[in-house]
């Protein structure tokens, strides 16, 4: 199947533009995950599976501080050394290089100031895990407790912030609000999310036979893990190699946070001369590593007579935890996504990062995008009944139209896809009949109500920071025609390696079975970006394609001589090399490769890719930071039990734009998985810290699978239909595809909004429904109670709306004064 060339990118004689597909490509085929057979048989190896293959391994266990904030006044390791099996205790004194786990120099690896409950102040190495644990218990630490800031309310009140403040604005927000027909304002605070990758953090470090430090790590960012290990050890990067076999899930949680742990293992290995394994158990992982940022939002919005948004003013405050980590770019993405899919002519949105004595919050699928988008979706869901129209109509009538641009100045290319997806979804899901059925059900049932909601997604693809949008790859063709590829991306379950095998097979024109992909290592492809921002396939696919095309270009010369045709007429398809018009002169790929070797033609290549056309002014928050937008929409139906607030997700329909899919089975898996993970964030997953003044202040009380509940089978939609938007070729991207990792998570807003609809059905209608986030059964129950009373009221326990904003707390309160006065903390 050949694709039409939509973009004007220059093409070599042999290869078309990046988006073009050759005949019979391996991309676009529905293939299972490349490691599926290994997964199901338990043969797939993860970092911790390597320890039984590694003799003499030492085990590491942290000494966790029992305070949210304290000074370490004394640290005596000698009692630990008396514990049988304890080999060494690592402290700040052991660090030959820089005592920091990050790149911003605000994350001491061995701290003297405890910044959160569970902060590791030292690490014990033991012959067994049991010995290391007992050793950690024996380490004597004196602390001087200090006052702590835990909640966003406390941080805002105390003025505890960190990092840069940013503002996205366009036009005049005051003027936009002033010309509104109706204005509303409110406050909304919503929770974070634990990654709960099934495989917890793990590193295995050793000094290998060549004297280099070799670290196997479950990391999304091997290059940065390498850099941090090197700076902690005080050695150049070339002295450290990091390998990631695969991860048992990452979701952003392993973008930054594995570095310090890998550095501890590496430090232990260099000091003891023995391999060191550092694996966090679930409680340690939840206690010590960062999560999705909780946010506080304060907003004011205006609508004209036709319910079009006229202006928005808002302040977003993220809870960054104790150090910056990725909080600044997360905030930037939140600010760049508060518009979601809606045209907001006049807008001013401020962002700031609170500093609290909690884990350092980090990347999590969506990277601030969900936190920005939930604010506008919450606003529209609350305001629709007060405007007297359906939420569906309010959303639809504010969708971007072609020709419009985002508040940060990027044209919304293919905005027409939003309305096309919207209508296709409604048609596929039988929307109008379903609305009638829900109304009929609700009329017939007093204590059970159903709700139906549709929400859109527009998500910008590329790293906001332009420099990260580059990638490398290494492709080797051996004399027998077999192919080995390496690239800078990591596999965490998202199917990147599968797609890369498909890209290589397509670009070389060989069967997938002849291509093998070797584990990600920093000594193969250097200076890689994190596998993050959904960009893994775009970037690394571009680099692999580039490397393959260098090789086929050389092979084409060889084959052309063998076939007696022009090199530009040589075609590589499924392991067969032919020339146009020379159907009878078929050569095998291996024959051509063999000939090339004897002619001393290079059979390997290093590929490189940089995303073209990006620019971004991080200070002014203006530019075109994204290569393109991924679009989608979801329609969800829920049923709420008014007695308890418990609910079921009856059905979800999704239409999502992945461009021309590289790998449909993988892409559908990403969409479904992202959706359910987003549903978990919005409905079920609740991080609770001890915010009392008691002895456990600052302790995470939901630090285990038994107290922090992920979606299980009972939370998946009972009926689940995912459709990939068709005729969606994305020009300028590898084989016309689009990124898929993050955007589908935000399709889950449809569930939250459907819950709001169902809750509203318990009441008289026409009033705002305030729903806590996560919308746990308890939060839904309180919202139902409020709806039944016929007046809005913040959910009692779930909505932690700040008391400091009590005046504005009854969110959606209509602003009567025309004044643009706006409370700023």
């Amino acid at each position, binding site marked *: 199947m050949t694709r039409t060339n939509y973009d004007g990118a220059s093409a070599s004689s042999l290869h078309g533009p990046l988006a073009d597909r050759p005949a019979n490509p391996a991309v676009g085929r529905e293939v*299972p*995950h490349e490691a*599926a*057979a*290994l*997964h*199901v*048989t*338990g*043969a797939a*190896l*993860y970092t911790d*599976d390597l320890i*039984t293959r590694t003799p003499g391994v030492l085990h590491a266990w942290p000494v966790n501080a029992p305070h949210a904030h304290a000074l370490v006044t004394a640290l005596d390791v000698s009692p630990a050394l008396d514990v049988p099996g304890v080999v060494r205790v690592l402290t700040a004194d052991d660090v030959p290089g820089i005592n920091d786990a990050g790149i911003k120099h605000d994350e001491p690896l061995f701290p003297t100031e405890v910044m959160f409950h569970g902060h590791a102040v030292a690490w014990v190495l033991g012959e067994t895990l049991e010995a290391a*644990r007992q050793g950690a218990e024996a380490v004597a630490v004196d602390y001087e407790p200090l006052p702590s800031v835990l909640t966003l309310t406390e941080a805002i009140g105390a003025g505890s912030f960190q990092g840069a403040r940013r503002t996205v604005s366009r036009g005049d927000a005051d003027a936009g609000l002033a010309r509104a027909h109706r204005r509303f304002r409110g406050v909304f605070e919503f929770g974070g999310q634990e990654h709960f*990758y*099934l495989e917890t953090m793990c590193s295995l470090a050793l000094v290998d036979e060549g004297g280099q430090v070799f670290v196997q790590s479950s990391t999304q960012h091997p290059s940065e893990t390498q850099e941090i290990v090197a700076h902690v050890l005080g050695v150049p990067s070339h002295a450290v190699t990091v390998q990631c076999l*695969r*991860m*048992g*899930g*990452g*979701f952003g949680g392993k973008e930054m946070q594995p570095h310090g742990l890998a550095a501890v293992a590496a430090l232990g290995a260099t000091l003891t001369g023995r391999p060191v394994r550092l694996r966090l*158990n*679930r409680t340690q992982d939840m206690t010590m590593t960062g999560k999705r940022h909780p946010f506080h939002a304060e907003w004011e919005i205006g609508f004209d007579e036709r319910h079009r948004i006229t202006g928005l003013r808002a302040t977003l405050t993220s809870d960054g935890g104790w150090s910056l980590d990725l909080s600044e770019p997360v905030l930037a993405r939140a600010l760049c996504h508060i518009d979601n899919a809606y045209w907001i002519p006049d807008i001013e949105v401020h962002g700031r990062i609170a500093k609290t004595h909690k884990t350092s919050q980090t990347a999590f699928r969506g990277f601030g995008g969900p936190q920005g988008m939930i604010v506008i979706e919450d606003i529209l869901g609350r305001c629709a009944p007060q405007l007297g129209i359906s939420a569906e109509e309010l959303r639809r009538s504010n969708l971007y139209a072609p020709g419009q641009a985002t508040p940060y100045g990027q044209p919304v290319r293919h905005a027409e896809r939003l309305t096309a997806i919207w209508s296709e979804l409604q048609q596929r899901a039988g929307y109008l009949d379903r609305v009638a059925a829900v109304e009929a059900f609700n009329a017939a049932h007093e204590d059970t109500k159903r709700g139906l909601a549709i929400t859109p997604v527009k998500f910008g693809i590329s790293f906001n920071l332009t420099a990260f949008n580059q990638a490398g790859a290494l492709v080797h063709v051996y004399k027998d025609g077999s192919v080995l590829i390496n690239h800078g991306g990591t596999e965490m*379950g*998202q*199917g990147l390696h599968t797609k890369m095998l498909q890209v290589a097979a397509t670009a070389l024109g060989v069967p997938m079975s002849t291509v093998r992909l070797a584990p990600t290592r920093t000594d193969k492809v250097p200076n890689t970006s994190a596998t993050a921002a959904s960009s893994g396939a775009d970037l690394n696919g571009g680099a692999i394609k580039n490397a393959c095309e260098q090789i086929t270009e050389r092979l084409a010369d060889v084959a052309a001589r063998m076939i007696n045709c022009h090199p530009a007429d040589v075609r590589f398809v499924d392991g067969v090399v032919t020339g146009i018009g020379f159907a009878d002169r078929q050569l095998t790929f291996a024959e051509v490769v063999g000939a090339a070797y004897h002619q001393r033609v290079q059979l390997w290549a290093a590929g490189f890719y940089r995303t073209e056309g990006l620019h971004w002014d991080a200070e002014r928050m203006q530019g075109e930071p994204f290569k393109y937008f991924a679009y989608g929409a979801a329609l969800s139906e829920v049923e709420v039990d008014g*007695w*308890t607030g*418990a609910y079921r997700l009856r059905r979800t329909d999704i239409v999502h734009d992945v461009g021309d899919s590289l790998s449909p089975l*993988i892409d559908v*898996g990403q969409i*479904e*998985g992202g959706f*359910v993970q987003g549903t978990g964030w919005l409905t*079920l997953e*609740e991080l*609770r810290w001890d915010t009392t003044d008691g002895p456990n202040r600052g302790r995470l*009380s*939901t630090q*285990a*699978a*038994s*107290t922090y509940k*992920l*979606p*299980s*089978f*009972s*939370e*998946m939609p*009972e009926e*689940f239909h995912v459709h990939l938007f068709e005729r969606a070729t994305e020009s300028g991207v590898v084989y016309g595809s689009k990124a898929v990792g993050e955007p589908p998570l935000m399709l889950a807003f449809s569930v939250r909004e459907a819950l709001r609809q169902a809750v509203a059905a318990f009441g008289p209608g026409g009033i705002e429904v305030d729903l806590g986030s996560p919308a746990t*059964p*308890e939060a839904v*129950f309180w919202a139902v*109670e409020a709806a039944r009373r016929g007046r809005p009221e913040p959910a*009692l*326990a779930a909505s932690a709306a700040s008391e400091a904003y009590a005046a504005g707390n009854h969110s959606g309160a209509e602003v009567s004064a025309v004044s643009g006065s706006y409370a700023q903390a």
Partner: protein
Amino acid sequence: MQGRVPQESAAAQHGGTGVGSVSVNGRPLGLGPVGGHVTLLDWLRSRGLTGTKEGCAEGECGACSVLVARPDGDDRTRWTAINSCLVPAAGCAGQEVITAEGLGTVDALHPVQREMAVRGGSQCGYCTPGFVCSMAAEYYRPERAADQHATAGHDHEHGPNGFDLHALSGNLCRCTGYRPIRDAAYALDRPADDDPLHQRTRRPAPPAAPVTVTGDQGDFVRPADLAAALRLIAERPDARVVAGSTDWGVELNLRHRRAPLTVAVDRLPELRACTADDETIDLGAALTLSEIERRLDGSVPLLAELFPQFASRLIRNGATLGGNLGTGSPIGDSPPVLLALEARLVLASATGTREVALADYFTGYRQSVRRPDELITTVRIPRPLAAHTAFHKIAKRRFDDISSVAVAFALDLDGDRVARIRIGLGGVAATPLRARATEEQLTGAPWTREAVRAAADRLATEGTPLDDHRASAAYRTAMLRTALLKFFARTRGEVSA
């Protein structure tokens, strides 16, 4: 080949020696010096069988699921999936275990593995071996063929092939959103006749031979019979008694508690009877919840309503009523139900037996009248059973969650009046309790909306609920109230029908 034929002869080769072997994937594997502190998961991984994973170490995620050969009556075997992170490895001496590695290989996938692989049932793959084992247990479940006709198309939790989705309720996946896993489960055919694991089910399970292990990883003893067990715990007050070890395993892994001696009572024949006459139904305290569920087969509707909501299938395959009552937890799910059923407990010690009403059993937070030298042997449910019953579990998640509030009702009506009502509560006080004031108020009262509303207000005052990470005290109180209203609505439906 789909799994090798397990070795059945290993069981007889040890007992009381401190060393033994486990048949793993059809091959005997020496246990080595593993004491009571070492879990089956850690032992398997230490032997290079790293397919089985640790995800949470508390029996919540199922990444550690493996199959064990358990008795299915006297002459057959049932492949039973359990959380290997919770059970002591020493207790598996002489037993047969199958892990994902033993079900099939990359070149010869087991049908369950094949469906999971081709349908996109794995993404990161870390939870996958556990899912495969849980799914395989359901694949081999002998009743599945019959259920195929009974339940097909009835709800969203049973497949057209009779697959009960609750078999996977103890497995968490963070990647897929579950749809492809459900599709894989629902696509499974019947096991082939020559499937060795299927054939294995037609022969008796390995007996649980006595075991004694001593050493620096904690002593472990599986006594030969009840008398030996009672003698041992009378001598050793520091002994930790375990059946499924689903509670103790969590203490071991997460709170790092260590017992000098672990005593396994899960296979004592005296604790595994299930009998019924006109007066009572006797349930052996060491029967697993799954076994009780199968044996009662819906004959006690209130228990039938409880079981699917009690933890997960993986946990129910190990957990026992004796353990759920023995820990004395205020948030166990069986006590409210057994209180409403007016159950009595038979307690045995080396010096004799006694019977106590469950309502008199709990004395404080994790405290009971049971002495350290006593074992619960039998849970005795009096007959006749109440005509109308219901169990309301309030939790964040429908499958496999701990209740924030649990309420059980057992009601008999005399015309439109309440002849007798029993209400058991969990999660609202330091112990499970009976809502006696509400029971009293309703007894003899008309079963009407007005009377029930008044009683619901009373019910809301019973107990002293707390605020915690599961729920607020206000919500717990509200749930007590609405539970009765909801129960009333349901019985009206039943009565009019």
